[in-house]
């Protein structure tokens, strides 16, 4: 019994998680196996509907490609920024503060600006026009460029988070190691490849896992920039089924698939612990 009593202060937290994490997840599974029209359970009707829908397959593909591209761009960008701003540049304290400004903007605030930046008559095309280039259709549904615009917008907003994680890890590397390598004649590039990068490995891995899992549930960015059908992912597909068709079964089926994917990919993080 004393072991159980040790857990008592955590009881409210565990009860809350049971009610608002476990219970709705199970209810979503039940909904996804319930025929929305007849109420029949168990039924595969929702999965049949969803797998017969071309938009679902586009959403599934988008949900693999978009997070992969987002993680690659943000981790590379965050690493580059961290290395640049770890160096002794003039005014680097101010620069570091400025670089995290996008992170301070709430997601919808950032995205509403981006709608106007990448609109046909928006700021990006105005900048192109001023430089003498033709305007570009940044966010036309279904185009490849739309994909890259969405990746760029997400990177613009979230790279500061990766930057902060990697800057902290970079600061914890003792200067003496690089100094010793420099005395042994290693150039900047070799020092980066053989000292900085291996020592940053745990932090980089954490960044990839955390950003990857976060990007897997990407929702507001494609929804606000392209609508539910422009660059579908599983989240926007589920929302589309819910709000445009009122089909809670199909919405639950698509979102439960996403949850399953997310839980499976969370398992490696559990073994590593959470502290980035």
């Amino acid at each position, binding site marked *: 019994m004393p072991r159980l009593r040790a*857990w008592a*202060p*955590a009881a*409210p*937290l*565990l009860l*809350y*998680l049971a009610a*608002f*994490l476990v219970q*709705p*997840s199970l*209810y*979503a599974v039940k909904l996804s196996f319930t025929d929305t029209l007849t109420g029949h359970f168990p039924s595969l009707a929702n999965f049949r509907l969803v797998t017969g829908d071309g938009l679902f397959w586009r959403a599934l593909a988008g949900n693999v490609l978009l997070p992969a591209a987002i993680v690659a761009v943000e981790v590379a960008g965050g690493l580059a920024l961290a290395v640049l*701003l770890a160096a002794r*540049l003039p005014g680097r304290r101010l*620069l*570091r503060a*400025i*670089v*995290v*400004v*996008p992170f301070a*903007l*709430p*997601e*919808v*605030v950032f*995205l*509403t*600006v981006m*709608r*106007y*930046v990448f609109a046909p*008559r928006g*700021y990006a095309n*105005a900048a192109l026009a001023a430089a003498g280039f033709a305007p570009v259709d940044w966010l036309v549904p279904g185009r490849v460029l739309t994909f890259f615009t969405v990746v760029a917008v997400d990177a613009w907003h*979230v790279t500061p*988070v990766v930057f*902060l*994680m990697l800057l*902290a890890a970079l600061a914890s590397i003792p200067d003496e190691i690089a100094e010793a390598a420099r005395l042994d004649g290693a150039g900047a590039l070799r020092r980066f490849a053989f000292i900085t990068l291996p020592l940053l490995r745990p932090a980089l891995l*954490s960044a990839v896992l955390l950003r990857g*899992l*976060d990007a897997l*549930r990407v929702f*507001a960015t494609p929804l*606000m920039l392209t609508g539910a059908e422009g660059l579908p992912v599983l*989240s926007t597909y*589920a*929302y589309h089924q*819910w*709000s445009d068709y009122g089909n809670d079964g199909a919405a*639950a089926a698509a*979102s439960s698939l*996403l949850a399953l994917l*997310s*839980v499976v990919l969370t398992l490696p993080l*559990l073994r590593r612990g*959470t502290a980035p």
Partner: protein
Amino acid sequence: MRRIALLVVLAVAAADLLPLGLVLKQAFTPERESFAWPPTWLPRTLTLENVRTLREAVEIEGGLGLSALVAALTVAATLAIALPAAWVAARRPAVDRGLDRALVFARLFPTIALAIPLAALSIRVGLYNSPLGTGLWLAHTLLALPVAFLVLRGGFRSVPAELEEAARLDGASTAGAFWRVSLPLVRPSLAAASMLVFLVSWDEFGFSLLLQVTNRPLPPLVYYLTAFGHPGLASAVAALMLVPAVGVLLVLEPALRAGVFAGSGR
């Protein structure tokens, strides 16, 4: 090499300030200026026209009040749940491991996969679109708990367990030692956690969009105003949303820069 690095960093810094500048510009210029081609980078006319329209046509006070109420209730619920849990986690490694793992799921679970069943459930129990946002703050607590837990556990770890033991030797109960010795010492963490949790709720979009269809807090309001083609109005609401975000970030900036909360903010 150094000059190139500086140029790159300056370009990035400019790109990072641009969105903030554009929100403020569009918020305080007439909406027709936001539709101009080529668009203006600096405001030509400064006006409170958008704010007036928001008050007259959109009843912004309702959204503002709902957002603030939901955020405040999220803070209260989250702290009540996270405080004892963070304390016991700081004192007992076995409990800490268990809670840490459970909260990883709370932190990374896809919002939509909870928002849809919660919306369906709240329709059944009559909490859907609640004018007081009851379903919403209950859901926001899930997103806020991992943040509060991390910050508070850090606070309790810095309070030596010996202090509580000394209080118990002097006759205080475990609860008494917690209330009168440890809790006053973690007040800074408590303040930081409250502010971060307030922002988690204030900024949240997914649950807000699905659980509140007509009684809308500010984030879905920005979404609808954007989708319906109102750059000025959307930006004015966005600028309003920025006030607590910027305030909290200025207060917590030293801790953020030290990487204390890295990765826990989203």
